[in-house]
């Protein structure tokens, strides 16, 4: 049986630097998986490979049995994969609402001519797009900020907005790239709850990148830990916590005199 999502022997070099070296893991449908590792371990590169921003030098990335490698980025989206970005990529000048509407329109169609004349399905479908976006904004707690320019939101809220925007694509697989980066402890706490809730309520399979061990430990039953582009451990939070390789990656090598 093929896994829901599977990375096998994926390698990516940038010049002489091996960012990811024969990385393999698989995720079952409905799982909430954490991908952790110190800074520079190659976590974001993995996301860029999955979403088609880069093509791997070797290996294959299978989603529901289909190889994603030959697909362009926008085609990856059409297969039901959405992601957020570590260095926020919101449409800064647009409003919070417009940001979500831009992706909510993905599954709500009307023709170009209807858009140009505002006849036909335009009104009904625009209303649908609007409602769907507002629903998602209230889901992430930003409904009262809908008309504000996205770039003026506090950092933590921008991260939530990115999540709302990704959810508007109705993905099956959601990739969250360091959703807690730059947040304070309180914000991280409520983010944990949010990630867990949307994972359950939207029927998602979720892969979260984090370098904060505690966040991943708290919400992810399945954890993959990597360092220097390679997988060093995989398992439940308990297994990871006591794994010697993980401790070495995070705490450094014990010096032997």
């Amino acid at each position: 049986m093929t896994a829901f999502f599977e990375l096998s022997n994926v390698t990516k070099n940038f010049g002489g630097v091996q960012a990811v070296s024969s990385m393999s893991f698989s995720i079952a449908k409905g799982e909430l998986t954490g991908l952790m590792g110190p800074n520079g371990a190659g976590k974001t590169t993995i996301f860029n490979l999955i979403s088609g921003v880069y093509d791997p030098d070797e290996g294959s990335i299978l989603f529901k049995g289909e190889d994603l490698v030959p697909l362009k980025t926008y085609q990856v989206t059409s297969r039901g994969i959405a992601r957020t970005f570590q260095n926020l990529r919101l449409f800064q000048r647009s409003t919070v609402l417009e940001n979500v509407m831009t992706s909510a329109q993905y599954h709500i169609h009307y023709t170009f001519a209807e858009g140009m004349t505002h006849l036909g399905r335009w009104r009904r479908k625009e209303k649908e797009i609007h409602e769907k976006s507002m629903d998602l904004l209230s889901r992430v707690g930003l409904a009262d900020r809908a008309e504000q320019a996205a770039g003026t939101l506090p950092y933590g809220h921008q991260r939530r907005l990115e999540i709302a925007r990704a959810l508007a694509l109705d993905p099956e697989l959601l990739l969250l790239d360091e959703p807690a980066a730059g947040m304070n402890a309180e914000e991280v706490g409520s983010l944990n709850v949010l990630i867990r809730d949307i994972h359950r309520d939207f029927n998602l399979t979720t892969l979260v990148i984090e370098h904060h061990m505690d966040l991943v430990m708290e919400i992810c039953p399945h954890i993959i830990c990597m360092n220097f582009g390679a997988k060093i451990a995989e398992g439940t939070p308990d297994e990871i916590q006591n794994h010697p390789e993980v401790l070495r990656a995070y705490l450094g090598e014990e010096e032997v005199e």
Partner: protein
Amino acid sequence: MSGYTEGIIILLCINAIAAMGVSLLTGFTGIFSLGHAAYMALGAYTTAILTIQHGVHWFPAILCGGIVAVVVAYLIGVPTLRLLGDYYAIASIGLGEAIRLILENWQSVTRGARGYPGIDPYTTLPVAAGIFIVLAIGMFNLINSRFGRACKACRDDYIASSLLGFNTARIRVVSLMISAFYCGVAGALLGGFLSFIQPVMFDMLKSTELTAVVVFGGLGSMSGALLGTAVITLVTELFRPISQYRMLIYGAVLVIVMVIRPEGIMGNRELLSWIKAPFRRKA
């Protein structure tokens, strides 16, 4: 209304149509063009040739003018807009010059550099205003639709937008094609207004003026493009009596606005959003 006032209004309509086209491409899709006068030239010459040599009625001829511009835009857009960066801007300079040189040298069809006289004066005030209104409604509707949001998304962040499922290259090409259609129609109307066209009317200066007007009005604001057109067209007309200084004033206005308000008159907002804003109900 005096013939002169009528002439200015017609000219305003024509310039506004072209400016809307450039605004969609530059302001909303984020692609700079330095050759949009070429699309105006294509529209003008196609319409002139069709009406005079083939006896086609001016209305379908204007549409054909727009369509020829669209076809050329497609041919140049597909290879250059797949690349990110300013490749199209560079290519558009080449396009602008190439079209002008073809028009100057293809004597048998375009009558060369001396120009093409005797075009029916079909661009009356009702025609110009009517076409302007229809195209303006279309354009304002368009930017408030799925396509408008797609353009802005591609302009602001191409990686994010391609991961939101937008085929960014395709959106850029379509945006260019619509833009070329507007300019083609504007060119066709200009021919009917002046009854005479000449390749030199569609030179690099005209292209830069089109882009300057849009930057002046505010990138990402369609009403800004219209306002910019109005200001620039009126400045050049009002100061016609002091003809030798009017380009000086035109230049000064551009410089002053760009220094005081680098984002253009309107920034990226629309006129209506200011009027409506206080009354907008909380969503």
